[in-house]
């Protein structure tokens, strides 16, 4: 055991509030440059936020077009496109103008028969996956003229699909569902097939995150559990390696794995944010809690996302209509 005890605190460094208090802000996404945030909410808007000349976060643009709640937003890896998945059964695509922070609607992906719950770009930025309460996953390919062609419609989950997420460097898609399972999907000779199904959660799985190398995955859900999964190369299967249970008193809606610091952040309906990290350098498959921030929001925390460029910067949003920027600060003290 080391004599040095690290103490951490989560310091609030920025805060934005929706005009209507207690608008549910469902999801947020950092632009790849780490300086712009996109959020979406039950007011049907996608909103773009950034810092002004005085370093104060503020609203830049509200993107209007959806007829119902916008559930998730996702930036393309190059940061030129933004996708929004909506309960109106469509997914909108927006393009950022070259020199200015201004967005125009370029495409609308129609096809799902019920609410679209999640959207994700693959690491190359050419494939897009969407999923819905209609139990299907659609894989779309972006064409040169901002047109999207549906490559495949995948069924396999028995219930709503809550989340889709691409592997950080392979053409491999993970999905999580109301049917309590996680599935992996891969293009096998032209057909997208489910290649692995993970059981372990006891209720709906709300969110997923890969580590930087993509050999580990974390999942969280309605059952208040955080499960860690690892790719077993020998058997070519994902296996459960670690679990946190009942650290939260209510469902866990979001999880994100920082590719800069290897830390994990969750957001829960008990209003808290919890940060996890690997227990020690010698225990790659064990994890510990570094910090628990109670009352991070005045209501459910719906989303927690690490900044992709600046270490230890975390953004969160919730049912209190606010978007918060936090800095995880480490103070080393000798005990």
């Amino acid at each position, binding site marked *: 055991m080391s004599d040095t005890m690290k*103490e*951490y*605190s*989560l310091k609030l460094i920025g805060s934005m509030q929706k005009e209507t208090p207690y608008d*549910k802000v469902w999801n947020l996404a950092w632009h790849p440059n780490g300086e712009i945030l996109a959020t979406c909410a*039950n007011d049907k808007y996608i909103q773009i936020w950034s810092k002004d000349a005085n370093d104060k976060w503020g609203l830049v643009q509200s993107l209007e077009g959806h007829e*119902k*709640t916008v*559930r998730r937003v996702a930036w393309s890896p190059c940061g030129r496109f933004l996708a929004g998945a909506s*309960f109106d059964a469509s997914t909108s695509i927006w393009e950022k103008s070259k020199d200015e922070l201004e967005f125009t609607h370029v495409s609308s992906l129609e096809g799902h028969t*019920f*609410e679209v*719950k999640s959207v994700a770009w693959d690491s190359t930025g050419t494939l897009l996956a969407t999923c819905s*309460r209609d139990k299907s996953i659609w894989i779309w390919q972006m064409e040169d003229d901002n047109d999207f062609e549906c490559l495949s419609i995948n069924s396999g989950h028995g219930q*709503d699909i*809550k989340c889709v997420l691409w592997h950080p460097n392979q053409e491999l898609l993970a999905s999580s569902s*109301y049917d309590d399972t996680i599935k992996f999907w891969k293009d096998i000779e032209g057909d997208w097939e489910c290649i692995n199904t993970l059981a372990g959660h006891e*209720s*709906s799985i709300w969110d997923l995150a890969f580590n930087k190398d993509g050999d580990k995955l974390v999942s969280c859900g*309605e059952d208040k559990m955080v499960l860690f999964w690892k790719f077993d190369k020998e058997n070519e299967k994902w296996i459960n390696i670690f679990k946190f249970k009942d*650290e939260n*008193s*209510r*469902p866990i*809606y979001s999880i994100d794995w920082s590719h800069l610091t290897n830390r994990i952040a969750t957001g829960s*309906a*008990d*209003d808290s944010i919890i940060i996890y990290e690997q227990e020690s350098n010698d225990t790659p498959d064990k994890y510990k*809690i*570094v*910090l*628990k*921030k*109670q*009352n991070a929001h*005045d*209501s*459910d925390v719906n989303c927690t996302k690490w900044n992709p460029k600046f270490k230890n910067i975390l953004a969160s949003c919730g049912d209190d209509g606010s978007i918060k920027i936090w800095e995880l600060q480490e103070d080393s003290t000798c005990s």
Partner: protein
Amino acid sequence: MIMNYNVIDKIDVFDIIRHIKDPEFPKTLEELKVVNEDWITVIDFDKNNNNDELNDNGNKENVNNGYCFIKILFQPTVPHCHLAPTIALCIREKIKEYLPKRSKIEIYIKPGTHQTEDEINKQINDKERIIAALENPEIFQLVKKCIKEDDY
């Protein structure tokens, strides 16, 4: 209905939901014995101090200040009642609208009173399903009609 309580208890919650009209029958949930004061649990966390900073050190203590946790069991009129999810929505929406305080609400079928109890319990507590149902204009109108306070 005007309420100004310091601490919310199950009687307050029951007073809010007892007059909800059944989506099908011209009676209230109380008259149909769908809801009962004794099937309500309320924990009001307002009594706790608002002291964030002490809890930043990873301790597993629970300081849920500023809201009340409400758990409600209800008994559908028949074990195959297809409107059970709508009744749950009405209960949830009426509390949200009339309780002068932030709340976290869990609603469950009274054990043993519905054929597909587990399925319904999952559905009526799923945050996305709740929001999506309320964005359906037909369901929204029905819920509004059932929770309208026109007797006073």
